């Protein structure tokens, strides 16, 4: 509101109050969001953690000092700081650091898949229920309630048990249990949005329900969903790890972090690092997501907190 930004620099161009093209407008609003996000230190830390995770997953073969699957029964359960095995080795003599690095791929995989499935399913169910009202609403919300009332881990377990253990099924199972809250959020938002004047306005242009839901309601629900998803990600990683812990998640010898804890928990008393290192890894990434989610909430959803 003070001086108008100088439009000759990139920064100025991006901060311009009078965008001159669609692209300019979009970039400009993205950049402004980024600026306010950037000022949130903790959120930046979160983002940093996740970027690091991404890089780690991407360049795992370059970073990892060992093959994550290479066993050496003579070199098993080496402690932290052993030369060549900074994080020690596990019960089959595999390098824990390398396994953690490769495990980041699986974690990312899980996170991406769940983040793609659950919110979209929830968004679809919630907005349709909220906008259509009537019977569609009642039926959809009952279904949501059923899945909500289902003991979460039991549902996931049942699903995995039905389809067999494995990472994809674990992801499906988690998604199956994760969507109902999103549906509820989306529905609540839809209910407030659907009677607003701008929706009435598009209806007056003759727009059909599908168009209103996808073009007008979704963009408004998405930001709060993104925040929720980010905050839930930690829970999702932990749920996947929980399944791994019960032996139903990722399959050996894949270095999934939850499964690593599960394998290492036998040694918790004498060789604590075997379970602790993956525990710390999960903790760090979860923390990253939580920090990021907190920050995103401030940017995307200023009403929610702040």
């Amino acid at each position, binding site marked *: 509101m003070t001086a108008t930004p100088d439009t000759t620099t990139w920064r100025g161009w991006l901060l311009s109050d009078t965008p001159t093209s669609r692209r300019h*407008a979009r970039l400009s609003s993205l950049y402004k969001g980024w600026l306010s996000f950037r000022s949130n230190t903790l959120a930046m830390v979160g983002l940093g953690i996740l970027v690091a995770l991404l890089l780690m997953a991407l360049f795992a073969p370059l970073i990892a000092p060992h093959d994550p699957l290479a066993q050496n029964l003579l070199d098993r359960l080496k402690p932290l700081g052993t030369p060549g095995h900074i994080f020690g080795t596990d019960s089959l003599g595999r390098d824990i650091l390398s396994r953690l690095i490769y495990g980041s791929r699986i974690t990312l995989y899980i996170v991406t898949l769940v983040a793609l499935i659950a919110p979209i399913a929830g968004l679809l169910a919630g907005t349709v229920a909220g906008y259509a009202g009537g019977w569609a609403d009642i039926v959809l919300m009952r279904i949501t309630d059923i899945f909500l009332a289902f003991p979460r881990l039991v549902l996931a377990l049942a699903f995995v048990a039905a389809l067999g253990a494995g990472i994809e099924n674990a992801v499906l199972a988690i998604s199956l249990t994760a969507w109902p809250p999103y549906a509820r959020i989306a529905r609540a938002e839809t209910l407030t949005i659907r009677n607003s004047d701008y929706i009435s306005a598009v209806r007056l242009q003759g*727009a059909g329900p599908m168009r209103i839901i996808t073009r007008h309601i979704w963009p408004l629900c998405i930001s709060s969903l993104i925040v929720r998803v980010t905050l839930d990600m930690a829970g999702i990683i932990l749920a996947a790890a929980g399944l791994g812990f019960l032996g139903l998640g990722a399959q050996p010898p894949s270095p999934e972090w939850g499964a690593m804890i599960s394998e290492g928990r036998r040694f918790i008393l004498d060789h604590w690092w075997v379970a602790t290192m993956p525990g710390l890894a999960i903790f760090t990434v979860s923390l990253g997501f939580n920090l990021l989610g907190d920050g995103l909430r401030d940017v995307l959803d200023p009403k929610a907190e702040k």
Partner: protein
Amino acid sequence: MSAPALSFSGLDVWFGSGRDHVAAVKGASFDVAKGESFGLVGESGSGKSTIMRALTGLVETWSGGMMVDGHKLTPGKSRDKTFYKKVQMVFQDPYASLHPRHSVDMVLSETLRLHGFDDIEARIGKLLDDVGLGPAFRFRYPHQLSGGQRQRVAIARALAPEPEILLLDEPTSALDVSVQAEILNLLGDLRDEHDLTFLMVSHNLAVVAHMCSRIAVMKDGEIVEVMSVEDMRANASHHSYTQSLLRASQGYFRDTDAMQEA
């Protein structure tokens, strides 16, 4: 003589059922001639907006007769495209009537596309010009606009399908007096330019008097009086409610005055 642009006869509108039943409009009847500006006044909650919402199909529970250009409307959701091409509406609150994540460009181009226009680029430029917003505003988002500017965008959106009838639901009540003047002038200009018929709701008698030639006074869902603006100015009203409205709009007088009604 051609049919009136809008014709209401014995319109009833209600909400809810059973105990929640609210009769929002009771037996409203009036005509709006082509090219006329007609005002609806009355206290808050008297059913002014509801009449408009019933007309546009935003409220489905009504009975009685409504005609647009001589075509009868039927209760129910569906209004065909031609209806929306003919009738458009501007809402009361400019802060609530624009999608927070759609830029001006998106709002207008979507509207144009829905109505099947091809020369969208050219039309957007023209519309923005019409409502007195330069091309500089085209890619802004609502949060980058002032209230008056938003209301101009809303008017541009309503003008996009080139309607004949514009419904104005308190278009300036959320705005400052200075901005109100700008918008009222703009609406006047547009009316002359495009041969529009106005149906305007307001609780500010002065605003209605300024814009309209005839007014209907509503109270409790009923139309108590339809009169010309000249009559109103001359204080030639027959109904006590209208009289009290008129008197009240004069302002505050110190104790000495006789302002002692309950």
